[in-house]
């Protein structure tokens, strides 16, 4: 029976957003096992995502508005503390990657294999649901993925953005030998390049305005890089295709930037009959080259978070060494330094900064 003394030696200190730019550390009540399928986990590491920073700065993303204080964070790894009676795939002590969204399992999207589009998704750090920048976290068994022995907890925290990239590349239907262009070389853009490589793409062109990011990607996953200029989308596209020797256009173009000029350029870069995937989120409404889409018979698809099979594949990509997520980790900070880490991410420092859980011992 769970009492206050169960896991009494563990802290449930949490990083709470009260309103924009107002964050505090608070001890929250420890979560407990509610269902025989639940797993209670001690959070080891949490990565910071652009969305976390956005809530911190603006207090809202689109229709999702932070009305009450909310714990931030959703990219986490942890260690299993306790399991419900029916849990079979993980046991106490196992290290896991956490998939931070619990769908209802009953609505039409859930039943048809698109649980990422669940009508009643409870997603960590999307209001009103608390996130994982906390001590203890309770998850359904099927959203906890055991990490193989040789995969570290730090790498485990990168599984979440990698799963986002997996979902995007699956939407793009990348096949061996195809050519892929990825707009944006932030963590998701970088990981999309890596996943495209794992899917056998022969050319992977990374596009960004920051030279340091492109330089990094040259040794990470890209075969080519491209820096756009302040010219029209058509002109940037034409130069990109010339410099990368893709006269007919790229088979698949992925936007991981959300930036209007990148989206416009993408439609001019993709080949006739190709696929364009919108992964990045920026301005809600933009000017879009609709006639080019039509005449070139481009398939344009949205991509949102991750769904069936994506997390499992992400863990395998890390475990097999096909994607070296370690290279993206540029900082690890103590839980108490979380706010500084958020500032650093906002300032564009590094690639992925991890925040240690409040129960991590200093080494």
């Amino acid at each position, binding site marked *: 029976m769970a009492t206050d003394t169960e896991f009494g030696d563990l802290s449930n200190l949490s990083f709470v957003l009260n309103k924009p730019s107002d964050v505090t550390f608070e001890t929250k009540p420890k979560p407990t096992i509610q269902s025989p*399928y639940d797993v209670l986990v001690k959070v080891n590491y949490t990565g910071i995502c652009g969305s976390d920073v956005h809530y911190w700065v603006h207090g809202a993303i689109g229709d999702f508005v932070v009305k009450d204080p909310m714990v931030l964070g959703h990219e986490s790894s942890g260690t299993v503390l306790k399991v419900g009676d029916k849990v079979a795939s993980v046991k106490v002590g196992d290290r896991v990657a956490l998939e931070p969204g619990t769908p209802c*399992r*009953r*609505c*039409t999207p*859930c*039943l*048809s*294999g*698109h*649980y990422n589009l669940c009508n009643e998704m409870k997603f960590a750090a999307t209001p009103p649901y608390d996130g994982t920048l906390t001590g203890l976290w309770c998850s*359904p*068994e*099927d959203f906890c993925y055991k990490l193989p022995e040789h995969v570290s907890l730090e790498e485990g925290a990168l599984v979440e953005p990698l799963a986002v990239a997996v979902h995007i590349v699956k939407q793009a239907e990348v096949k061996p030998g195809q050519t892929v262009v990825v707009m944006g070389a932030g963590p998701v853009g970088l990981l999309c390049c890596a996943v495209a490589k794992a899917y056998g793409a022969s050319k992977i062109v990374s596009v960004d305005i920051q030279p340091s990011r492109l330089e990094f990607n040259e040794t990470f996953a890209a075969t080519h890089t491209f820096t756009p200029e302040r010219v029209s989308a058509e002109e940037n596209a034409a130069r990109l295709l010339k410099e990368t020797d893709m006269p007919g256009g790229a088979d698949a173009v992925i936007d991981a930037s959300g930036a209007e000029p990148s989206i416009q350029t993408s439609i001019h870069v993709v080949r006739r009959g190709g696929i364009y995937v919108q992964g990045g989120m920026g301005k809600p409404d933009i000017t879009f080259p609709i006639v080019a889409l039509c005449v070139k018979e481009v398939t344009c698809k949205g991509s949102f978070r991750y*769904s*069936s*099979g994506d997390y499992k594949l992400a863990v395998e990509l890390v475990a097999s060494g096909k994607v070296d997520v370690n290279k993206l980790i540029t900082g690890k900070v103590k839980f108490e330094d979380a706010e500084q880490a958020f500032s650093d991410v906002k300032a564009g420092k590094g690639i992925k900064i991890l925040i240690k859980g409040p129960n991590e011992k200093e080494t």
Partner: protein
Amino acid sequence: MATPLTNPAVYLYGPGEAKIEESPYPTITDPHEVILRIAYVGVCGSDVHFWKHGGITNKVSHAQPLIMGHEASATVHSIGSSVASLKPGDRVAIEPGRPCRRCKPCKSGVYNLCTRMEFAASPPYSHGTLRKFFTMPEDFCYKLPDSMGLDEGVLVEPLAVAVHAARLADVKARQDVVVFGAGTVGLLSAAVASAMGARKVVSVDINEKRLAFAKDFAATETFFSPKGSTAESIADSIKGQNSSLEGFDTVLECTGVEMCIDAGIQVLVSGGTCIQIGLGMPKVHFPIVALSSKEITMKGCFRYGAGDYEMAMHLLESGKVNLKKLITGVKKFEEVTDAWEATARREGIKTLIKGPEE
């Protein structure tokens, strides 16, 4: 006079051995559940198999008797606290399998393949719908339109089987389709193919009465397969009747009979698709080289999954498929074994069993 049973149910103890006995009165254990008062239960070929052999893969036994029945309609008796789309008194068609919602098939949109599916009337523990009260999750109960009777509501289940098959085949407008078998599933498969825009729908059977019904119900033409037929003679004759075609685009195989499966592959045009719905012998003699060299796509088809009941309800509400004609007999609850025997004798098309009276 014995005390009336609170939840009378038909238990099968073994081949030829069924009894009406008390079953546990249901309680709502999950806020998303509803308790249903069963109105009608249909008889399926699988029920007949259970009656004659005690089961298919797993068998019933004296130690573990099983409540039979899976094709059912009902009225809502009571609802759990989270139920929003149904209220007591609503008339519904039932999708009689509870998936676990957690395994890989469930989460990837093929819950019909759930590793822990609890399907009505599956030995040893998953009891069926031949009882007064039955519990189901809300999302597996479908409100019947006012124009549809509770008796017709039973046929939504086999219609969903046909919908699942036609969707797997991805029947497109103006395609030519052959349906093997003119039993309930074959008739409904022909009707769904037609509703999806098929041009020719050829219904094949060995029973002339069923073929006459098929022609009236959904098929554009029929083919009677006489005694002494071979797969080649069947395929050649069907193609002969349609000499302007190179072959057919889609085959919906609803018999499970080896000769029909073989003929199906032969009657297809190169690049065609065959959907295997019928269940017969586990292993059959199969024209594998024809499949290979004609680049045929063959898919298994099992029950129904995401979106099938919804499409079945749409076909009924819009009048594209009419089910009343398929009901050829209604028996009282106490006459359940008569209903199974009648179906075994291939009497009529669909025989229904009424739920227990008050």
